[in-house]
């Protein structure tokens, strides 16, 4: 059995760990509020963008000759997967959930006999994927320096995707990220961005618009922007999810540390009492023998 001193030390160390996790939880909570706010503020832009594109693609006259970003290359041989994770750890299952989702997608694709390439955004995803899929990773981007998610960064990723598309390096592009639902639930998402999926609501197709210049030109201008917008949306969702996930993970850690402290304290008290009793018995039996 551990000595009293050992127990005391262990209690102290668990307590200090608890302090750290508690502080991390507080920080995550504060950051979460900010991230959530900016995720909500960013929504109108991507929604409006989606709406306009929907209206445009409905109004387009020549569906065959539209931008390849909308209609696709006609094949789906090579898939590009943009896996978006965080740069920091200690956030529960946040990164593993995305990786799991991505890995299941990879194996599905390889089972169909198609190729895939990976771009990782965020260093944690790269760390986890490079062991198994090292040679598939063609690019690794990390935004450790930028404090907040900003459109400029998203644009960089978007431009890279478009360049690779124009160079014919892939046919289908999917982004992986965590959608923020609430603090305890984040849903890993796989969203196809090239070619654009327009299966959702097509109820407002009756709108007639005037276009200046014509549809095709607007569309070819808009689609690259839409990719950056979608990536930006994913980054915002991701950062809110990361903080939410970290907050609940740290909350759990704090609670576990509390339980451990309680258990250790009881053990400490018991052994202290046992030592006292032992000493008393020794004294009494010593006195009796006189």
């Amino acid at each position, binding site marked *: 059995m551990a000595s009293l001193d050992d127990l005391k030390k262990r209690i102290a160390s668990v307590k200090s760990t608890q302090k750290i996790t508690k502080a991390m939880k507080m920080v995550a909570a504060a950051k979460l509020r900010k991230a959530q706010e*900016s995720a909500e*503020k*960013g929504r*109108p*832009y*991507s929604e*409006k*963008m989606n*709406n*306009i594109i929907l*209206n*445009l693609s409905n109004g387009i006259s020549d569906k065959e000759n539209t931008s390849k970003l909308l209609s696709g290359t006609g094949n789906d041989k090579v898939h590009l997967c943009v896996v978006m994770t965080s740069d920091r750890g200690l956030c529960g299952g946040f990164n593993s959930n995305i990786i799991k989702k991505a890995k299941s997608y990879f194996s599905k694709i390889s089972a169909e006999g198609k190729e895939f390439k990976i771009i990782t955004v965020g260093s944690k995803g790269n760390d986890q994927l490079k062991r198994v899929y090292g040679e598939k990773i063609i690019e690794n981007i990390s935004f450790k320096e930028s404090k907040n998610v*900003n*459109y400029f960064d*998203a*644009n960089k990723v978007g431009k890279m995707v478009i360049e690779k598309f124009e160079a014919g390096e892939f046919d289908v592009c999917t982004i992986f990220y965590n959608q923020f639902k609430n603090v305890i639930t984040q849903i890993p998402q796989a969203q196809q961005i090239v070619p654009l999926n327009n299966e959702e609501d097509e109820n407002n197709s009756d*709108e*007639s*618009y*005037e*276009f*200046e*210049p014509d549809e095709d030109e*607007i569309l070819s*201008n*808009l689609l690259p*922007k839409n990719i950056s*917008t979608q990536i*930006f949306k994913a980054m915002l969702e991701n950062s809110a999810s990361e903080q939410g996930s970290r907050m609940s993970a740290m909350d759990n850690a704090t609670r576990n540390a509390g339980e451990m402290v309680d258990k250790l304290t009881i053990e400490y008290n018991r052994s202290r009492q046992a030592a006292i009793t032992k000493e008393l018995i020794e004294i009494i039996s010593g006195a009796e023998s006189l």
Partner: protein
Amino acid sequence: MSEEFKVEIVNPEKSFLSKEDVTEVVVPAFEGEMGILKDHISIISFLKPGIITIHSKSGEGKFYVEDGIVEFKNNNLSILTSSIFNLNEVEKSKLQDLLKLAKEEASKSEVNDQTKYLVDQKIEVLKSLN
């Protein structure tokens, strides 16, 4: 009858501006400046670098944009842009920085005609502001 309509300017990070009492908006559309009044036909267009002027009951606002899309529908004007500056608030030095950036871009050789045109526009507008 009121002559007002609603304007909303959003950039990726947030809703930049939302106004209900707007009487006229002039936007630098790709094929020339375009004034929009109430009950304009539904239109989608994109912007080149220039100045958006918003006339409203509560005063006039001027904004510098580098790109964007405008959508007008049911007396709702939405402007989506990734780079917008309120000319009443932005500092001179910021505009000068933008001008410098644009000039650098223009000096690159491998730009195509359309980007060249846009960059030239940008420089022209920024020069007139500085």
